[in-house]
């Protein structure tokens, strides 16, 4: 029996890697020219996500955060490492074996218009997962759809159930996507930039909704975002990624009040504060995130790091727990304690 209490581990990634082959030309292949190259999108990431928590994965474009999300739900197969869901090792599960577990994990993506079939009414879209996972429940479809619409704040439900995506606003569409994710009563929801496209005033409503649903349905979120300010309003713990690796993990409060990795510090300092009296004064790291095809040796942040020393170019720092529950991959992080 698995432990279903809040706080027990629901998903575990153990040293997971995902390397994508870089497509080479036909001639290169034919002549076996050159070493095959790989994009090391995720290069050894370990995370435990506890039941009932919101784990925020933050980082810039190309950091690998979306790939980690997809690996956690086994939408992608890891090149190396293990993915454990509720004590089941699903690293090498086939599509068929995964299908049984799919009703327990759902996804919300950034663009609701791309997630919804334009020819499916709201009620059909929401009932679609039921049809796949619980066909016996389809006779109660109307009631189930009505209830879940009410749950996500699309009220009164009868106004919305027969509409099509193009008849809804962006915020309403994302609520439909959330409703569809809820209908199979999942335990884990991967939310990949779920509110990035919404306007400011809609964002706060969606965040509020996701917070409420989490408590009411006892959900666990893997919340992926590039927006550290937004993450503050929903996440319990934060993992910061840089170039395919986790550089820091800790509670929201620990990471935001005392970031230990120089990259986390830079990232946080770069976020503008909505107050013109507090404009940024800290300097920024030079340059941009390098290519994940040939990442820098040692610590991947060393070419841009203000405190880098010779060892940083040679030795890849391990994740070390410098405070209870606060881990960081930096040779010299102690000075920030």
């Amino acid at each position: 029996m698995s432990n279903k209490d809040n706080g027990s581990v629901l998903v575990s990634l153990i040293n997971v890697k995902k390397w994508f082959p870089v497509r080479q030309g036909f001639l290169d292949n034919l002549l076996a020219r050159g070493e095959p190259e790989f994009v090391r999108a995720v290069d050894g990431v370990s995370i435990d996500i506890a039941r009932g928590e919101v784990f925020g994965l933050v980082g810039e474009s190309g950091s690998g955060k979306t790939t980690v999300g997809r690996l956690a739900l086994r939408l992608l197969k890891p090149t190396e490492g293990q993915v454990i869901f509720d004590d089941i090792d699903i690293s090498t599960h086939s599509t068929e074996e995964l299908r049984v577990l799919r009703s327990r994990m759902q996804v919300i993506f950034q663009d609701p218009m791309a997630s919804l079939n334009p020819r499916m009414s709201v009620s059909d879209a929401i009932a679609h997962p039921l049809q796949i996972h619980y066909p016996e429940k389809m006779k109660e479809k109307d009631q189930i759809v009505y209830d879940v619409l009410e749950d996500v704040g699309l009220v009164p439900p009868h106004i919305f159930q027969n509409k099509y995506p193009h008849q809804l606003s962006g915020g309403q569409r994302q609520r439909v996507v959330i409703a569809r994710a809820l209908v199979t009563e999942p335990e884990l929801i991967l939310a990949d930039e779920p509110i990035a496209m919404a306007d400011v005033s809609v964002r706060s409503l969606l965040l509020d909704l996701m917070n409420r649903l989490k408590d009411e349905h006892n959900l666990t979120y893997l919340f992926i975002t590039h927006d550290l300010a937004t993450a503050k309003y929903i996440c319990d713990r934060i993992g910061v990624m840089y170039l395919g690796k986790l550089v820091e993990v800790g509670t929201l409060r620990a990471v935001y009040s005392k970031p230990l990795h120089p990259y986390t510090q830079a990232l946080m300092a770069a976020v503008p504060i909505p107050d013109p009296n507090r404009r940024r004064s800290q300097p920024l790291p030079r340059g941009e995130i390098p290519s994940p095809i040939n990442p820098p040796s040692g610590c991947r942040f060393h070419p841009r790091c203000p405190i880098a020393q010779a060892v940083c170019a040679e030795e890849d720092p391990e994740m070390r727990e410098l405070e209870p529950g606060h881990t960081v991959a930096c040779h010299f992080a102690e000075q920030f304690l």
Partner: protein
Amino acid sequence: MMTNDILYSIQGLNVEYETRLGAVRAVDNVSFDIQKGEVLGLVGESGCGKSTLGKALLRMIEPPGHITSGKLLFDGLDLMTLSDSRIREYRGSRIGMIFQDPMTSLNPVQSIADHLTEAMLTHGMYSGEEEARKYAEALIDRMGIRPERIDDYPHQLSGGMRQRIMISLALALNADLIIADEATTSLDVIVEAQFLDLLRQLRDEFDLTIVLITHNIGVVAEIADRVAVMYAGRIAELGTVYDVFGEAMHPYSQGLMQSVPNIVLDEGDSLYKMAGEPPNLLQPPSGCRYHPRCPQAIDICSQVTPTFRPGKTGHYVSCWLYEEHPAMKETQTGTIA
């Protein structure tokens, strides 16, 4: 530096789009001045008309849209009276524009050198290609891009570099005014901050005036001198960043400012939840367009459009709460139902 000289005065500007369902007035009777040397932030949510307004400043509205009336007094000359070929000379050489996605503004089969030299030669800045190329190299060097990359093509550059190339195109022609429409939106937070730093420096160095159109209110707090808040085709409020962020007058600006996520722990911990959604401009609400969502609306708000008027010096607002109108007094005493 910001001065009190007016570079560009927009008076009674109206822009309409013809649609099958009728005319949509995307910019409705907008008047404001752009001061020489300032960074003016133009903020608002999707569909508020900020991008249309930005394009109208260059007379770049394309059918089915058109400017139906108004004056565009740039440096004393009404751009509305210019012929199409004269206005083309103004675009680029006096007023430059940067969009969200530089890839759509750059020609994929032209190198950076081609882009810059062609622009300079077309506008008669230099007589010889050699000379123009030298200046182009100096310019991109100033932007923080190594001059040897001048023969690269747009796809070889990162998003941040492409945006720098767009800026150098405007600077190559000595533009006085740069309109940046969501220019930092596709950039990661550190790259965005680097870009804002660069804009700040360039403004002083090249005596630029910048209109920054964005939905990102944090960015405006970081860099703007003044800010205009748009709602449903109209300017709701205009003032210095300190006024608008510190003492927002319009209920919409107040709500907007309180909806912005703040990364600082224990600050702004609950976001304002604005009721409703922005209106459909095919059938805009009568009177003040914000009245159906406004928590402070009074009777007159739905009946008569408030005028855009100064509150304290330099702080303008379009709201009945601040207007001393005869009808307003009657409403307050209850004579108008």
